[in-house]
């Protein structure tokens, strides 16, 4: 039987050659193992944040205080935001599938700097530990001060004045940002240097394009927020005055610097997710993707335009009207390449032989939820509408439809799609489909009422509300129960599939991209037996069958 990367001794290590399987995992430089470790840690934190959110929804089921007080509520939404944004969704798809799949897709044996990749993973772990440490720290008087209560955005001047533990949270965000930068750097060099011979940029799978565009954002935008967080830390320690109006500093400047990174960061989240969509749609429609180049270039242009739209977060913070108008226009503009992608995906399905397997269900569901999330985003890009809806449940609903209903749903799609490749086994499809429907119904129940509540003026981050909003909060609460059930059920099904699922062969889905053309499943250490020569497009189907086939020496035999 052929060996897989999961077997003992089948790995390279950063330091030495440890004998125990445990240390072989801890010190591994293999991109596939590192990706799996990221996934494991990320999903633990994901569920911590999910339950924090559930706690808030339970509290909001009725007006007034039930289980937690207002201060704790503030800390709860901060914890939820910090974990979800910095620990889960920013490493997100690149850390998991960028690591596991991207080198396989371009026919490389590993990333360009495998040791750096190992270091980056542990930097991420250090960041996680610092973030958690702020939960259990005490002030001089010995009272527990707990995690920041500022929201994940750390807006000055409140973040400079609050007694809660903002500094450790800021340090954590900085360390996690560094890990993100190094991942992006590693992937950029990998994609430039290690593509198999013959694979030009326009022969790369579209997921690689997504990762490539993302990596540029990680590299160029993250340092700006990094230094902003450092300035805020120095402000807390020494009072350098940069963001503190009592010393002449400008708190709005903090918002600018923060969003110069944090708005591109949402594209950093969504672009690899779109990449997953572009992988799944052709495979399960059995057709070559429609408009390959437009999808590839729209990824690049979303990354570019996304960099210059941050001002739409500051419509109500004090900005000149001309600046507002320009930012508003630029924000509309970013919807154009996104729209192009959606038309391309739908055109790919047209006259295709659509197979409604679980990954495809998630992808199709995302077309609906992300369309809602994206289009409501366009509405609040308008200055006038935004002044009405700023900081209401409307923008909360928009954000969650776009990020949960876009990024996370596609991450789940990817989990189900690459599951047979990564584990060599298969989950129970019926249960996986039930889990999808639970999530799909749940997300709409949970967040659609918030659009209405927000439109009628329900502010975000509030611990209490007027009685007329009760019905929306209660529908949301039911939706939260449904989606949490769906999430747990899905995870249980996947874990069970890995432990007890039946073994499957290579290329379970009949896909065309290189990661499926390994000789065994799961793939061995160092991937393909020989590096193939790429003289074909990534998604070539003929009468619903993949065109390109390889022999055991990776020579084409079709």
């Amino acid at each position, binding site marked *: 039987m052929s060996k897989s990367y999961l077997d003992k001794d089948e790995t390279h290590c950063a330091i030495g*050659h440890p004998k125990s399987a445990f240390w072989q995992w801890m010190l591994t430089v293999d991109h596939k193992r590192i990706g799996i470790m990221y996934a494991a840690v990320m999903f633990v934190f994901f569920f911590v944040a999910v339950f924090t959110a559930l706690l808030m929804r339970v509290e909001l089921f009725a007006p007034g205080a039930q289980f937690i007080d207002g201060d704790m509520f503030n800390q709860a939404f901060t914890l939820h935001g910090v974990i979800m944004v910095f620990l889960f969704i920013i490493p997100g798809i690149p850390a998991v599938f960028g690591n596991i799949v991207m080198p396989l897709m371009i026919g490389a044996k590993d990333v360009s700097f*495998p040791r750096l990749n190992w270091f980056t993973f542990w930097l991420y772990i250090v960041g996680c530990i610092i973030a958690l440490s702020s939960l259990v720290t005490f002030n001089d008087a010995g009272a527990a001060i707990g995690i920041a209560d500022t929201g994940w955005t750390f807006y000055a001047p409140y973040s400079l004045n609050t007694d809660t533990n903002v500094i450790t949270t800021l340090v954590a965000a900085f360390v996690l940002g560094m890990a993100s930068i190094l991942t992006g750097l590693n992937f950029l060099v990998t994609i430039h*240097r290690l593509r198999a011979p013959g694979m030009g940029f326009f022969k790369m799978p579209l997921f690689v394009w997504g990762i490539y565009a993302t990596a540029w954002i990680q590299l160029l935008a993250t340092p700006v927020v990094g230094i902003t967080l450092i300035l805020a830390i120095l402000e807390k320690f020494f009072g350098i*005055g940069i963001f503190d109006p009592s*010393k002449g500093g400008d708190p709005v400047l903090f918002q600018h610097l923060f969003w110069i990174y944090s708005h591109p960061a949402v594209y950093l989240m969504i672009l690899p997710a779109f990449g997953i969509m572009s992988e799944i749609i052709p495979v399960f429609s059995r057709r070559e993707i429609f408009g390959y180049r437009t999808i590839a270039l729209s990824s690049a242009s979303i990354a570019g335009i996304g960099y210059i739209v941050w001002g739409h977060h500051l419509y109500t913070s004090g900005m000149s009207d001309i600046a507002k108008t320009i930012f508003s226009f630029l924000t509309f503009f970013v919807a154009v390449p996104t729209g192009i992608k959606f038309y391309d995906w739908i055109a790919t399905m047209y006259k295709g032989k659509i197979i409604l397997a679980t990954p495809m269900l998630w992808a199709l569901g995302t077309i609906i939820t992300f369309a809602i999330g994206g289009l409501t985003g366009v509405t609040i890009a308008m200055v006038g509408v935004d002044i009405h809806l700023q900081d209401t449940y409307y923008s909360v609903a928009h954000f969650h439809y776009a990020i949960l209903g876009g990024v996370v749903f596609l991450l789940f799609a990817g989990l189900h799609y690459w599951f047979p490749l990564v584990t060599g086994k298969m989950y129970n499809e019926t249960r996986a489909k039930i889990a999808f429907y639970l999530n799909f119904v749940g997300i709409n129940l949970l967040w659609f009422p918030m659009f209405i509540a927000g439109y009628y003026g329900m502010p975000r981050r509030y611990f209490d509300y007027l009685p007329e909003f009760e019905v929306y909060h209660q529908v949301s609460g039911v939706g939260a129960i449904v989606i949490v059930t769906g999430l747990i059920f899905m995870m249980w099904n996947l874990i069970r599939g890995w432990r007890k699922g039946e073994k499957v062969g290579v290329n379970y889905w009949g896909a065309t991209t290189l990661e499926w053309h390994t000789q065994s499943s799961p793939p061995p250490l160092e991937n393909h037996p020989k*590096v193939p020569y790429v003289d074909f497009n990534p998604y070539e189907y003929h009468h619903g069958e993949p065109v390109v086939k390889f022999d055991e020496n*990776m020579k084409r035999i079709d």
Partner: protein
Amino acid sequence: MSHEYVPEVSTDREGKEHVVQGWQDDREGGKMGFWLFMLTEVMMFGAMFLVLTYYFSLHQQDFINASASLNRLLGGINTVVLLFSALTMGLGLLKMRSGDVKGAQLMIWATIVLATAFLVIKGFEWTAEYNHGVFLGLDALQSGNEHSKPFGEILFFGMYFTMTGLHGFHIIIGIGIMLWLLKRIKAGKVTPGHNILHFNIALYWDLVHLIWVFVFPYFYMIGAGDIGGVIHGH
């Protein structure tokens, strides 16, 4: 399992062979990675220069007054020291490339000495400023007390200590990696034929001195013309 790199070829349908680039021994990749890292440094310091420029536009006179009180002599000496260290670093790389390993080591040591001198001078400067009551956390840079400086000066010194401090931190890191480089050279891991580590550290040092080339005029020189500031200075 070992890391030994076996060069590989891939064969196309006509049977033609193509060289495969592995991650091992990828000089171009190593260079590209480090250039990208330099880009992140530029973005980081760039953001700080942006902050600085913004506040300068709001408080021009305060900035000029604060700048006038800085010690241009020590700052100027440091600039020369750092430019010299960039020269020794570059010469070291040239020597390494031409096969003169001993000369390269000597040049790296010279760079380390100059970098240390820079830090020592910086230390004197900061000490003097501290003794004048101008330092992070001291009353002069806090608002609402009798020693408080005007807003613009608080912001100027806040950025001054932040940026020169971060720059100094880069110098310390630089000394650390140069010592490591010397160790690698001694161990025979960095050789005239395989000098990517030396190359990248030289690149790093170039960036560190380049940042100073912008930091120096922005902090020390904008108040240089204001003679009154020096005479009636703090």
